[in-house]
Every structure is written in C-alpha cells, then in structure tokens.
C-alpha cells in the first residue's frame, strides 16, 4: 500500500505534463495565412489562400473535438523582416499554432527558421525555393505544392529535349530567382545544353525591354524566365512586343501561374509551356473543388498555390485530429509525415522525411485563343511527371534531417 502510494506520487508529476500535452492548447487551433496581400504576388495567393484555408476548416465543421479552428491572415509585403516580425508576434502573443502559404522564398526561409525556434508548424505552399527541404530544412516545415527543382525538372527538361539547348536567363534578384536559375541550369547542363548568360533583375520590375534586348543579343535559343507573378507577366508582354518570338527565340516561363495567364490573355501567352502541380480542370475532383472555391472568389479559378494551402491545412487538421494535440510542432509535423495524404486537389500522396510533399506534377501548354472554350480554360496537358520523378531525390537535397537518419 505504502509502496503503491509512493509510486503513484512519483508517477504523478510525469503524468500531468503528458496529460496537458495531449490536448489542444487554449482550446483554439489558430492557423495564420501569411502572404503577399497587396503586391505582385497577391493574385496567385492573397485572399484566395485565406478562403482556401477556411474551406479546409469548414470541412472539419470548424472544430476538432472542443477546440475551435480559427483562420487569421496578414500581409508580409514581400519583406522578410516584416514577415518574421508578424510570425513572432503570432506565435508569442496571439497563440497561432501554424503558419501557411508564405510565397516569396526570402520570407519563407525566414519563417521556417522562426517556426523551428518556436517549435510550431510551417506548411509552405507559395514559396518556390527547393532549399526549404534542402539545406534549410527543419523538422517543423512541410513544403506542399511545388519547388524550383520540380519546375526546372519539368519545364527545363521538356524544353531541352525539344531542341532548346542554348539558354539565357532573366532572373529575379533574390533567393527564389537564384534557386530557380541554379536548379534549371543543372537540368540544362545535365541534358547536354549550354547556358550562354544570365541577367539579374530587381524584384517587381515594370520594364523588361532592356533585359530582353540583352537576351536577344546573346542569340540563345531559349530565354528562361526565372521570375514569377507580375515580373513574368511583364517579361512575356515585352517579349511579344519586341518581336523576340518572331525573331526565332523561345521563352520558357519557369514558374507561371494561372493568374498570370489570365492577366496576359491567351493571345499573348499561347504556346507557352509550364509546369504546375495543380490545374482546376484536371479531373472531376479538382473541378468540383475549384468551382466551390470560385463561388467564393467572384468566379475566379484557383492557382496551384491556393489549392496547396487548402490541401496543406486539411492534412494538418487530420494530423491534429489523429494526434489530439497541437502544442508540439515537431510532433504534429511527424504525424503529418506518418499519415498518407488524400485531398480533392492533389489526390493521394505522402510527405517525405525532409518535409517535401510528394505528388505528380504536370507539364502544360497554354492554349491558343481558338482552342479555349471559355474563361479560365487555358491549359492543355502535355505530360504527367509521375511522383517518383517529380521532385528532387531525397538523398540529393543535403537536408540535415535526412543525413541524421542515416
């Protein structure tokens, strides 16, 4: 009897923290959507990502057990210092449990670090840099939708194989552009192609004619656009005006979103090849989900980033439900990796040890105006890149998490 009570007294302090961990902290699951709400990336993520996150929360009836699911959002203005400031405040003061979306690789790398320091959860959809699951991987990050390696592997490969063996890059002058150029350069060179030159342009440039003239002077067959959003739109528009394509050179948009094509119009954009992990008109499931999203967004159709936010939040909530707790970010991400993923936007998939979400990606070509049946009918499928080849092999990423496991 005495021994038993002593044992119990010893065991109790151990049991209490365990009991506390096994529930939702403060009875609220708070998810913060952090992205560009007002600048050049606002249409590919922005409020559309917030709606997507809300749709995932609604599928759980707005709560798990007794814990309410709450979605908050903020604008990082594409500035890493503002982004990490918001993240720190969210985590420390406002009890946010997970941050999602975060386009702009510069900001995303900063958020990955803050999240790991605070042991929360970071599910990235908008950023491209493959370093998030490479050198900069953390046990708290999941990179959902796409990355620079997948883009390079998809578009780069296809273009080189179609005979585009000399390249000139127009590269956005920050983490993302440089990562995309690096990964594409590797693909081009591995396939026997040659890179003749590149030019770094500042983020959010309005006039690309100078840069395009340099690309033209290089006589490269392919002008690779290692930029995104408004920058890609302006590059393609100026290229069409300056007769780059008529001159025999071809453009390769390495990261092109549905919203970019919408802004360009099919007349300017047709024939462009691009890699995407999601297209609304892919199958019945994506169509049904996209229409639901569109009904909340003035009839627009979602980009892959917005679909990725939805799917990422959905899987996060599934993991929380299975785990019954949201306090320990590492444990939640470990659970996310352990559970297979399944959602209407990306189908069935998995999350790898380095945090990379794995699913097929697709090579599309932008339709001619005559081929399009109506608004938002923009892409035709060229080929599917199966899961096994879509993303960088685990062992090539230099992710310390993977090395530690060996």
């Amino acid at each position, binding site marked *: 009897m005495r021994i038993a009570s002593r044992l119990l007294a010893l065991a109790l302090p151990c049991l209490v923290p365990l009991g506390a961990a096994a529930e939702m902290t403060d009875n609220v699951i708070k998810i913060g959507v952090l992205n560009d709400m007002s600048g050049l990336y*606002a249409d590919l993520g922005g409020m559309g990502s917030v709606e997507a996150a809300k749709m995932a929360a609604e599928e759980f009836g707005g709560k798990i057990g007794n814990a309410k699911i709450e979605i908050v959002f903020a604008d990082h203005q594409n500035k890493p210092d503002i982004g990490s400031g918001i993240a720190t405040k969210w985590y420390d003061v406002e009890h946010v449990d997970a941050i999602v979306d975060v386009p702009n690789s510069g900001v995303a790398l900063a958020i990955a670090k803050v999240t790991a320091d605070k042991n929360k959860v970071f599910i990235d959809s908008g950023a491209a840099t493959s370093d998030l699951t490479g050198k900069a991987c953390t046990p708290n990050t999941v990179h959902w939708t796409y990355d620079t390696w997948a883009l390079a592997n998809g578009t780069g490969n296809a273009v080189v194989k179609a005979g585009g063996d000399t390249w000139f890059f127009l590269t956005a*002058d920050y983490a993302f552009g440089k990562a995309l150029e690096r990964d594409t350069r590797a693909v081009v060179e591995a396939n026997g192609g040659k890179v003749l030159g590149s030019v770094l342009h500042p983020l959010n440039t309005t*006039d690309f004619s*100078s840069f395009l*003239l340099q690309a033209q002077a290089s006589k490269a067959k392919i002008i690779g656009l290692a930029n995104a959003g408004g920058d890609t739109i302006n590059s393609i528009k100026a290229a069409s005006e*300056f007769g780059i394509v008529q001159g025999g050179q071809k453009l390769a948009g390495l990261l092109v979103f549905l919203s970019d094509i919408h802004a360009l*119009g099919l007349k300017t954009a047709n024939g462009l090849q691009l890699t995407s992990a999601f297209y609304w008109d892919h199958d019945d499931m994506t169509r049904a989900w996209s229409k639901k999203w569109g009904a909340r967004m003035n009839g627009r159709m979602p980009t892959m980033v917005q679909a990725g936010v939805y799917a990422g939040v959905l899987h996060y909530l599934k993991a929380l439900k299975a785990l019954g707790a949201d306090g320990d970010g590492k444990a939640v991400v470990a659970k996310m990796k352990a559970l297979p993923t399944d959602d209407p936007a990306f189908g069935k998939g998995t999350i790898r040890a380095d945090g990379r979400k794995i699913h097929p990606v697709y090579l599309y070509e932008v339709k001619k105006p005559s081929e399009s049946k109506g608004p938002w009918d923009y892409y035709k499928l060229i080929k599917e890149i199966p899961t096994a080849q879509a993303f960088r092999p685990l062992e090539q990423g230099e992710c310390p998490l993977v090395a530690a496991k060996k």
Partner: protein
Amino acid sequence: MNTLFGVPIQALFSQLLVGLINGSFYALLSLGLAIIFGLLNVINFCHGALYMLGALVAWVLLEHLGVGYWAALIISPIVVGLFGVVIERTMIKRIQGLDPLYGLLLTFGLALVIQGVARNYFGVSGEPYDIPAQLTGGKNLGFMFLPNYRAWVVLVSVLVCGLTWFVTERTRLGSYLRASTENPVLVQAFGINVPRLITITYGLGVALAALAGVMAAPIYRVNPLMGADLIIVVFAVVVIGGMGSILGSIVTGFGLGVIEGLTKVFYPEASTTVVFVIMAIVLLVKPAGLFGRTA
C-alpha cells in the same frame, strides 16, 4: 571597335533607345507634377494613382463601352482631369496656405484610397490591353527591333512636353501662370481669377498623368499598382530637375530614362537604385536641383 567598355556598340544603341522610351513616361509624369508644384505648392502624391486611373478608364472604355484606344486617348484625360478638378475644389483648396506637409499627407492618403479601391475590384495582376491595330509590329533598325508603339510613345511625349513648355513660357495664359507662382496676391489685384487658374492648372496636370496612363496601358498591364511602382522614381526626377521647373522635369525625365537604361547593361542589379543615387549627388552639389532656382 565594335565594343565600348566591353559592351557591343549595337547593344548600347538599343539600350539608349529603350531608355529614351522609359524616359518619355518619366517626362510626361514629372511634367504634370512640376506644373502642380509650381503653382499650388502641393506635392501631388496621388499623381501615380491618377496615372493608373487614366489607364483604367481606357480599359473600362474598351471593355464595357467598346470605345477604342484613339478615343480613349482624349476621353480618359478629360474624365480624370475633371476628377482632378473635383479633388482640387473639394479638398486641396481647403489646405491652401498651410504647411506643404498637409498637401503631401492629403494626396498620399488619396493615392492609397484610389489604389485600394482599384485593387479591390481588379486584383493586382491587372488586365490586358492590346496595342491598337495601326501601331502593332515594328521596324528593324539594324541594331534593334523598334516596336511601332514605342516609337509612337516617344513622339507623343516629345510633342506634349514641347507644347506644355510653349504654353507656359510663350503664351499669355502661361505668363499668368508664372506670375501667379511668383506673387498670387499681386496677380489677383490685376483682376485675374487666381483660384480658377489654380483649379485649371491642377486639372491639366492631372490630365497629363492620365494621358501617360493611357499611353502606358498597352505596354504594361492595366493594373492598380502601376502608378505606385512609378511615382517614387518620378518624384526623384522632379527633385533632380528642380522642384517646379518645367524644362528641368522634361530634360531630367528623358535623361534619367537613358541613364537607367545604361545601368541595366552595366550593372542591372542597381537599375532601381541608380536614380536615387543621382538624386543624392545632385542634392549635395546643387540643393535646388539642376534647373531649380534657389529660393
């Protein structure tokens, strides 16, 4: 012989030309700003937003009313100019005589409101606006392919700048304008309606911004942020040229376009900052600007 500082001469020529094209927009916009500052002493921070509004009106005309580019070139500046008159009559008028800071705050606030409303309705990616059929295509100049539309932009810009300079420097209306800048009380004593002159000037300055907006629509996209991207550079142009100096803003507008173009060849990473570096240097050496008069 074929290279200069390691850059092929041909590339240099084409960059000079491209710089001139961009300079046309700087010149058109800074011209309006200079006129407004000269007479109203208001730093018109909503100039960029009104430039965007000019493009947006052209897009709405085309998309919803079927009115094409050529008509928009006239209608849009009138519509936006009238909007400017309303702004001046209802708001800017009330802060006259106060510290210029109030004008800056008011117009900056207006810019945010106009941009915010436009963003809410149109998103940030913008809407496509085609080059008018008569101006599509281009000419091969040997060293570069010059799109007809860009040549047209330079032409119009030079004409408009020249016309504005002529009106302010060589006509009676211009002499009233210049006199009211110097001493509004005295001019009013001669029986000239200075408040009306001020309203007209503001309307005209704004109409110039809208004209630049329509000209820009086919080159860039019509998007709510197009003005915000440009306005800071244009302000630098006005400061370098000398606040309120019309000739200064025209010359600096074209000149800075060219310098920026050249920077894009020699050190592209600095192309967005070079204008401000020049501004800092000019302010150190000649605080009133290149063409400004010291007060």
